[in-house]
């Protein structure tokens, strides 16, 4: 392997060199998103730092330091830990399956603030890492082949089925979609993609018809016709649309959202935080947030594109995909475009687990940015 080494490929970097390479634009963008979250949470609490705004800020601060810390460690550690992390996450999911909420053994390890660990959240990142790790060691022409789709397919299907069985349709679809996108980016042939898409479509329709839990079916029916039962299950969607729509161009002003302040909005500090924002800051506010998220994603994708190793490209892109799916699903949901699935808006919604997942994800992205020129062996070893 050494004969192919190019001068620009770096084996190791000094700490100062790493710090110098920190992508501050990404840091600033993430801080901006978190600050918007703090502002909205402050407003929802009728202009109070308690109970959530201050904690949101503190939590972000801690996680930002964690992110920078994780960004500076050697990228090989990330790679090395890819499969183990995936296995641990899978075991946790199986644990959830077997012991329900009792499997909180990992809670102490991840507990930052009063958060419950959701193994599915860990799995989102773990799957990105594991798939990136798998494809890193695979020649591109082999990645396109059907034979090598088998293992990634299992790697994706196992957690998806476990999460689906919890049941958590929303997260399962997010995990599945993230995995599928990474397989796509790794170079899966269009022929297989087409066949897969058709199979998936048929399977999806079959699942919608036969495999849904009653509460999920009710959600979907409500979604299709929210006005039918305005005070029942369609209430959330309808009230959310009212809040967004009544915000107009410039919104009702900071602290001025009647829908959120008078409690017409459900889950306004978590899943429906975007709605509260839209009510108070209007189209200008929501558009700004969309632009901010797109900038974050653009930065992330640029980092992915500039990485000189498959692992970095796929992992960074995978994090971006996860992040983008969070945003798209959440915003579509609060606007009534898709059923309510319980996906928060990253960095803005209150809640530690998701913020931690997202920040560790961006730690990985930042790490890839810093180690974009690192030489990474394509070994198939369990660790390095």
């Amino acid at each position: 392997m050494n004969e192919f080494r190019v001068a620009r490929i770096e084996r190791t970097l000094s700490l100062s060199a790493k710090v110098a390479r920190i992508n501050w634009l990404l840091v600033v963008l993430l801080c901006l998103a978190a600050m918007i979250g703090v502002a909205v949470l402050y407003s929802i609490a009728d202009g109070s730092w308690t109970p959530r705004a201050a904690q949101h800020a503190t939590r972000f601060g801690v996680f930002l330091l964690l992110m920078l810390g994780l960004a500076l460690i050697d990228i090989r550690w990330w790679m090395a830990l890819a499969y183990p992390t995936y296995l641990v996450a899978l075991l946790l999911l199986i644990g959830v399956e077997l012991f329900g909420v009792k499997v909180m053994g990992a809670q102490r390890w991840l507990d930052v603030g009063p958060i419950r660990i959701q193994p599915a959240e860990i799995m989102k990142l773990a799957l990105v890492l594991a798939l990136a790790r798998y494809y890193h060691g695979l020649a591109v022409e082999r990645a396109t082949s059907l034979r090598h789709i088998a293992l990634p397919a299992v790697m994706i299907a196992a957690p998806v089925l476990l999460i689906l069985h919890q049941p958590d349709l929303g997260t399962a679809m997010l995990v599945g979609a993230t995995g599928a996108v990474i397989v796509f980016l790794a170079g899966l042939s269009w022929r297989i993609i087409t066949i897969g898409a058709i199979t998936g479509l048929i399977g999806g329709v079959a699942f919608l018809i036969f495999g849904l839990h009653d509460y999920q079916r009710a959600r979907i029916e409500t979604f299709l016709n929210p006005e039918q039962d305005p005070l029942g299950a369609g209430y959330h969607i309808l009230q959310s649309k009212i809040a967004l729509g009544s915000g107009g161009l410039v919104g009702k002003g900071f602290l001025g959202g009647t829908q959120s302040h008078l409690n017409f909005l459900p889950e306004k500090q978590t899943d429906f935080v975007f709605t509260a924002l839209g009510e108070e800051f209007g189209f200008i506010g929501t558009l700004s947030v969309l632009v901010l998220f797109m900038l974050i994603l653009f930065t992330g994708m640029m980092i992915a594109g500039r990485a000189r190793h498959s692992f970095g490209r796929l992992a960074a892109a995978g994090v971006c995909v996860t992040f983008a799916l969070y945003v798209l699903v959440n915003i579509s949901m609060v606007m009534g475009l898709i059923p309510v699935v319980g996906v928060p808006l990253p960095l803005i919604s209150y809640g530690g687990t998701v913020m931690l997942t997202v920040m560790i994800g961006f730690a990985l992205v930042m790490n890839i940015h810093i180690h974009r020129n690192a030489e990474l062996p394509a070994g198939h070893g369990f660790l390095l």
Partner: protein
Amino acid sequence: MARRNEDASGLFTRRALVLSGAGVAAFGALTARLYKLQILESDRYRGLSDKNQFNYQLLPPSRGQILDRDGVPLAKNADNFRLLLEPEQVPDLDDLLARLSKIIPLREDMHERIRKSLKRRSKSSAVVLAENLDWAQFAAANLHLPELPGVRPEVGELRVYPDGPSMAHVIGYVGRVPESMDTEDEPLLRHPGFRIGRTGAEKALDKKLRGQAGALKVEVSALGRVVRELPDPATLARPGDDVVLTLDQHIQSFAAERLKGQSAAVCAIDIETGAVPVLLSTPGFDPNLFAKGISGPDYRALLEDEFKPLFNKALGGTYPPASCVKPVIALAALRQGVTDSHERVRCTGKIKLGDREFHCWKRRGHGPVNMLGAIGKSCDIYFYEMARRLGIDNIRDAVHEFGYGENFDLGIGGGSTGLVPDQAWKRARFGTSWSQGETLIAGIGQGYLATTPIQLAVMTARLASGRMVKPYLIKGQEHPPFDELGFSTAGLGAARAGMIAVCEAPWGTAHRMGGLGLGDLKMAGKTGTGQVRRITKVERDDRVRKNNELPWVLRDHALFVTYAPADAPRYAVAVVVEHGGGGSVAAAPPARDILRELLKDDPITLARLSGTGAATKGPAT
């Protein structure tokens, strides 16, 4: 390796571009959707948001009172401490009802009722949990309010009828809005527990009494809890108007007391104006039970009572006028010139028509009687003869002029036309032609002829005044001055003289009760005994059974019509006692007593009594 990496990099870049394109498209779609929602449809959602934020609480108006002619309330309002339930705010109904049962008495069957009304109403409108709580219960419930989500205390209105049964038929009662009623345009009708007039004056005058709802604009939270009342109360409720009736609470109560235990009807009319100071049907029922919501067994008992307490007999009960019709027959005979007031008809106790015999109530006969005697003694033979000479169509025309066949419902409903038969009617009804025997019994007010107590009172008022007196009950519905009747003064004088003889002549049928008892004011009247059954030839040959030997429903109706003072009539009164027996015994004394009470309250009569009591100079009658 590097080449492989370059390949992979190139592939990644291409695919990443595809992916980014998809991402941009997705974000673009969201932006477009947001634009539609927040810019294009903003107005609509702003309206919905306002509707969320503000709620109009309906302020029900206070119902107008119903007053008697002196301003005594016959229907008024009291505080109704009640608890309402906002269904959408109740997380667990069973739990709530269980908790509530510990605070206020809540019968088990009420649980079912609440559940039922919850199902019926839309989720957004409140239902009544408990009504007419006493102050202690209401205070206790208010104290525990924080533990009772969805429960809203309210001081509503309870309709109260101080006189209860004696006014029940005229005033009627209020009750729940019937489910069949269209409440689309009138949100007030959907207000929980709102009552509207269901019968009587309450129903007839409901629009006037109801008033207009006000609305209070309040800011509410999603749970419906009122955050604040807005300073500009949208509109205050406009209370309903009071309604004044011609009834006299004091005398109506007196009449009810006087006829207690009987199935009877009374109607009194002010002869000058047509005002109705007494309109009574006994037994009555307690309208307060209906206003609060009557229980099933109570209601069934009222329905099954053979005295028919729910029925307004004074307006809707039909009875043969019996001998009360005789003065009118006499007038008709004079007008048609078939007799004069001096002609004597010989009464032998019966008269033959073909092979049928018609009997006088006095088996041995009255001997020769003129008009005065015939009315005073109520001789049947005389009036059979007059009827025979008149024919049914002349009788029909005469009684029509005295109000028979006309529905006087006084604007409160429940009236009846009674029945005035003639040849055409019989042909249409039975397909057979009229027989002369039927004319004869019409002459003594029997047969098909049917009248209501108010028609009898109208007849008496018209006889007394010679004018087309029309009754009214509701102040503001007075009639214009009454026209003269188409009968001669002399004829009217003769009929009146007969009626005075009934009460004042020693041989008069109602003389035994001893007159009016107000100084030397005289009264006029006519007894009537309405036969309910057919007396067979066999029974008549043996002995006609006395009323007290018959079951109640077969006994005769007792009737008495009267007016006084005879020389300057003020009031006319008609009394019908169902199956009461002879009119002179069962109906005349209470009618006289009611008439006396009316006169004792009448300023003109009082002036006469206190003035030169002895110097009564009336027209020669």
